[in-house]
């Protein structure tokens, strides 16, 4: 999957951490935290499989950090998840193994800022929804 795929994520209401008795207010994720597009590809230079996300607006991306076998690229100003990179050599060049690794590691992934939790959840949803739609098509099925 070389090209961007448009996402149609529709996050539901958030739980109000400070509910006020008798008062109904509804909280939702900021539109800026919702990924609008994604793509998965094999980076020929680094040899890593990369899943990238696009959002409304742009920002500089910070240096690559690591969370276990996943390497993360986060927005410099917002801390949003812009890309996940996986060393293919570690797990073998197999889409099945890659998908399993990403699914497992994404469940345990937490942002350094709690305010970005919603954004990471949506990234998980996006990966899950496109896993059967060719997200890993750049890799041999295995």
């Amino acid at each position, binding site marked *: 999957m070389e090209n961007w795929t448009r996402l149609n994520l529709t996050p539901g209401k*958030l739980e109000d951490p*400070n509910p*006020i008795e*008798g*008062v*109904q*207010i*509804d*909280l*939702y*994720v*900021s*539109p*800026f935290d919702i990924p609008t597009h994604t793509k998965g590809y094999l980076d020929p230079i680094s040899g890593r499989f990369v899943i990238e996300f696009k*959002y*409304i*607006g*742009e*920002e*500089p991306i910070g240096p690559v950090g690591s969370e276990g076998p996943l390497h993360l690229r986060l*927005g410099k*100003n*917002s801390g*949003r998840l812009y890309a996940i990179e996986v060393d293919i050599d570690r797990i073998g060049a197999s889409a099945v193994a890659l998908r399993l690794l990403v699914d497992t590691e994404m469940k345990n992934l937490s942002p350094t800022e709690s*305010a970005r939790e*919603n954004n990471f959840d949506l990234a998980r949803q996006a990966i899950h929804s496109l896993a059967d739609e060719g997200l890993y098509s750049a890799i041999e099925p295995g």
Partner: protein
Amino acid sequence: MRKHKIWLTAHWTGKVIYWVASIATASLGAALALDTSTISIPWWKATIEFVQLVAPGTLIVLPTLLVVTGALGKRVGNPWVWKTIQSVLDTLQEVAFSANHGDQPIYEHRVTLFRAVWSRRFPFIPWLRKRWLIPYERSGHINKDSKSYFRIGDRVEAAEGVAGMTWMRNTVIVVPDVLPAINNLSGKRNQKIARLTFVSEKHVRDKQPQMRTYCGIPVEATGAKLWGVLVFDSAAKGSITHDRATIEFSRLANILGQLVARA
């Protein structure tokens, strides 16, 4: 709300001073290089000699003026940006409320852009921690005299208004059903209005808010920097929904982000 006439005057005055100072600086430099003994026209010679006399002091003042007017010009912004932001808000007002005008006239459905600033009196000082949300622009051609400002700061509990709470939580907040305030009465009704809209009871008594539905959306400038808040509010209950507001906002969010980065 931004007083366009004052800011327009400031913008063009700054531009004129900038250009006059630029031309004067260049002319001074040229005059300093002239050898007056070669000038035969008496009045021209006297003029150049005078300019050469005052040049040292003037060459300190003029570049300083250039720097100051340049910096102020950046803070005042470009009138084209303000007008385009107004157009964006008018468009949002039209499309976000179009399904639910009902019997209400369009001016009872409002879209207000709030800007986060350090000081209400000196909103053009950019560098310090943001403490207030002040109205920057509003849809339509009336209701422009708003002086509603809301506190923001370090703690969520101290935030005021739907705008303030939207800023602090950096999430979309929808308050779908608020009763309108009743004149000068305190009591349970006004207490509930105050709790629903995150303001004090005194605020409700003084301002008498009549809006029944609120939706606040955080606004980011280019570079994912939180800049302010957009508030949809309406005198008609349930006239703005999360889906409607965010779908229409998302279409224009990128443009709005680039505009407010220049505002």
